[in-house]
């Protein structure tokens, strides 16, 4: 159990999906400067990440050993289908939640974090449970980065930044600073 927890914390902090591994940058840049939206986007991502991790584990165990070159295609097809299914299920089960998530759900398909998770998990050779904790940690880390960025951006709305500097340039510099800060987590688990 401790081993699994280690994987989770490592994926969340030490090798944060967004700030260290460069996954999930599209939502990261595009997320509005609002913490509430960031939380919802992050939550949706965590959900899709965990399901994808499970599907990827199954694919890796039972299907792909026979055709390793079909990995990319099978992963992306599964992800696209999963997102479609999740969207339909949410619409039926909870229309309010569906309305709140809005455009985010289809956006998740092209989120490199989802496919990236499937591939990293495969490369590291994680089994089902390890992959699941990896996905959870990664999703939490992604949400953490999103929320941090959104809260900083909410702050910058009311500060004295020259108009010219506002926009994506600022977001990226902030992201760089966050990435630097997260470097402090490295070495957390070494004896």
């Amino acid at each position: 159990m401790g081993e699994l927890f280690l994987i989770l914390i490592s994926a969340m902090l030490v090798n944060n999906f967004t700030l260290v591994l460069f996954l999930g940058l599209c939502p990261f840049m595009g997320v509005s400067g609002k913490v509430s939206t960031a939380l919802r986007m992050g939550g949706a991502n965590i959900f899709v990440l965990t399901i994808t991790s499970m599907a990827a584990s199954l694919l890796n165990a039972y299907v792909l050993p026979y055709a390793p070159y079909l990995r990319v295609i099978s992963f992306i097809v599964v992800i696209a289908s999963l997102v479609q299914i999740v969207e339909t299920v949410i619409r039926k089960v909870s229309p309010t939640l569906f309305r709140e998530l809005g455009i985010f759900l289809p956006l998740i398909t092209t989120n490199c974090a989802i496919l990236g998770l499937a591939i990293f998990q495969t490369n590291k050779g994680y089994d089902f449970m390890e992959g699941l904790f990896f996905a959870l940690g990664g999703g939490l880390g992604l949400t953490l980065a999103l929320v941090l960025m959104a809260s900083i951006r909410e702050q910058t709305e009311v500060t004295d930044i020259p108009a010219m500097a506002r926009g994506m340039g600022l977001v990226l510099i902030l992201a760089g600073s966050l990435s630097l800060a997260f470097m402090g987590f490295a070495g957390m688990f070494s004896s």
Partner: protein
Amino acid sequence: MTEQKLPMAESPQGGVGTAGPPVEVEASSFRLVGTLTVAGALAGLAIVLVFQWARPQIEAYQARVLAEAVTEVLGGAARYQTVFMDEDGVYKDQPVADTATIEERIYVGYDEAENPVGVAVVGAKAGFQDVIRLIFGYDPDAREVMGMKVLESRETPGLGDKIEKDSTFVNQFVRVATLIQAVKKGRERGLDEEVVMITGATISSKAVIEIINMRVEELEDPIGTYWNSMGASVAEQEETPPPTTVGGGAP
């Protein structure tokens, strides 16, 4: 304030004036599934063809990299043979099942005279940033490490990556006694089993040493058993001509 427009969010009607029928016809489900199936089949075919072409080159490269690493950490070997561990923890020449992971194998190196030179072992463990994977050569008779080579590492460039790039550090692993003692620079006492850690990269250095010690502790007995049994068969083979072997075992 999303500046980026997702291409999929655009209206499926497209632009007026570009190529496209003015009236949309609903395609039947049969056509939908049929199109995707055909496309999928063609895609699969293309990939399989490219894979057939690419596979020999990929495997050749991987075998070459492994052979080079084994030779390097054993201080020079004419050929190597892969030896697999079975369920009882005994090393055998044949794999038990096809899906043996690389950690359950060792590589026995032979010189030109077909004398066994040493055993190359792979090990991996978390370092500072991510997992470090290395291969090291082990001499079961002298109980010494013969050499070390880092295979995969994502340590901090300029600091942790010195475990690969700093030849002073790497050369300490040539003929060092097990179990290795890590010491800080300036505190060495000149013992056979000491390795001085890299200043500013002690965690990465320590991880390397710990990987080796961990694998040695784990495997010294099975390796010893196999080595001694091999010693007997080598003596036998001096009577009979050695069997012709293909250069390099299965990776």
